[in-house]
């Protein structure tokens, strides 16, 4: 079990779908290549999960992988629901939007959820908050075409005022004023993390909010217990726990943000529960243009104590 928690290794989902970085077209993935990666880490749990994936002629069956991804993302939405992630996102984004508006920005604001998957955050915001009617364009972007198709199907089924696009969230076509992500940022390590954060330094972008697991010594154990109970697919159980083990510390995130995106004042939001030493499961890397900094604390109101130092 503990070899499956080695943070040096990638997650299974990082490897079983590959895209051409230029065209974003799906590339074939050899099952043996994926197995070899986890064999080098002696991660038997991952090997067991990958062995079950269908691979005619040694190439992972793209349709079956898409089905698995959708199944896993439905399960992940359940965790978001249990952790009331929608309200958590809204409490931060509402304050950030109010700050931007208070500084005189009256045009349409586009919120872009990076790596949105089946778009739970954006669909929740569209369904449960007045943001769309207040001139906020709610958009989700993901490299995975199957997940984007599912996100659009779900939002159409409920006639939600939001949209989902296949592609690169930081491309000129999809860029936004506020970037958002959940459980994405730990997938970027080292230089890739700096590159990811550097992408925010575009003139139209005012703020970013990246939610991710907060690492502490009990996090993988808690994550293991919770995934064992709540998740049904081997892949989700494996990657969910590994995510908690791979999560970046607040220091790593803040240092990276301040280095890669110096035009933004950045810090951590919501690290502790009720100002006690008890950590929240998720913390948020928050960054805003320095011009917006003075009014931000005020817009958080009674939640201002959750906001760490932004600089």
């Amino acid at each position, binding site marked *: 079990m503990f070899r499956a928690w080695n943070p040096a290794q990638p997650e299974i989902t990082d490897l079983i779908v590959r895209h051409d970085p230029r065209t974003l077209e799906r590339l074939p993935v050899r099952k043996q290549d994926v197995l070899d990666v986890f064999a080098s880490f002696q991660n038997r749990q991952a090997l067991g999960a990958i062995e079950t994936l269908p691979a005619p002629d040694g190439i992972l069956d793209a349709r079956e992988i898409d089905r698995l991804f959708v199944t896993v993302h*439905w399960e992940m939405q359940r965790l978001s629901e249990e952790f*009331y992630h929608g309200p958590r996102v809204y409490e931060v984004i509402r304050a950030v939007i109010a700050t931007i508006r208070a500084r005189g920005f009256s045009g349409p604001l586009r919120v872009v959820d990076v790596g949105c998957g089946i778009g739970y955050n954006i669909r929740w915001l569209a369904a449960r908050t007045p943001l769309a009617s207040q001139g906020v364009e709610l958009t989700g972007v993901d490299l995975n075409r199957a997940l984007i198709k599912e996100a659009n199907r779900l939002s159409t089924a*409920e006639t939600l005022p939001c949209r989902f696009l296949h592609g690169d969230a930081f491309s000129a076509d999809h860029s936004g004023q506020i970037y958002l992500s959940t459980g994405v940022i730990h997938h970027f390590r080292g230089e890739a993390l700096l590159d990811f954060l550097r992408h925010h330094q575009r003139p139209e972008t005012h703020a970013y909010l990246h939610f991710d697991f907060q690492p502490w010594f009990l996090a993988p154990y808690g994550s293991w217990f919770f995934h064992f109970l709540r998740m049904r697919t081997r892949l989700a159980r494996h990657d969910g726990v590994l995510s908690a083990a791979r999560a970046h510390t607040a220091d790593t995130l803040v240092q990276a943000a301040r280095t890669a995106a110096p035009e933004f004042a950045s810090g951590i939001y919501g690290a502790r529960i*009720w100002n006690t030493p008890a950590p929240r499961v998720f913390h948020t890397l928050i960054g805003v243009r320095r011009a917006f900094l003075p009014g931000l604390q005020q817009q958080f109101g009674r939640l201002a104590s959750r906001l760490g130092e932004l600089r």
Partner: protein
Amino acid sequence: MKLLALYLLALLDGLLCGGRVSMGRCALIHKRSYYTRALLRGLLSAQAVSTIALLVLLGVASLSSHRAELRTDLEAAAARMLWIFVPYAAAVVGSLALRILPSTDLRSATSVFALGPFTAIRPVIMIVGVFYGIAASRLMETRILGLFVLSLMLSLEYFLNRSAGFRQAREIRQLI
């Protein structure tokens, strides 16, 4: 009266099993009708299980040469089981009730510290409750009936989960 209380607890358990197996299998935001159907499915399954248990109990009673003694023994076993099941049910319902409070942290905490662990120990509670109930029974019929009902209740969630899994897999196959 004690058997009726056990029956009501079985219905509650079925209701919650129905809800639990449906979670993570529908990605809409508005899911009230989906969950209502799932809860109803669980409730009806528990009713079916209870009906089977009742029919077996009536069958055993009709064949028994000491019906009055059997009834007393069953009532006594049921009373002992309630000592285990009622506090567990109260703790589960109490945790669910806490979710009415308007605090995301508190609501999430009920999942992490209460509902999750309670789900994990459900089979253990069932086994302990039934064994505690039948341990002091004087009649073999009571013990066999207790174990029969235990096997039915333990298999309830398994079959509900399998059925929900088939429906989900079929739906995803139609989508992709």
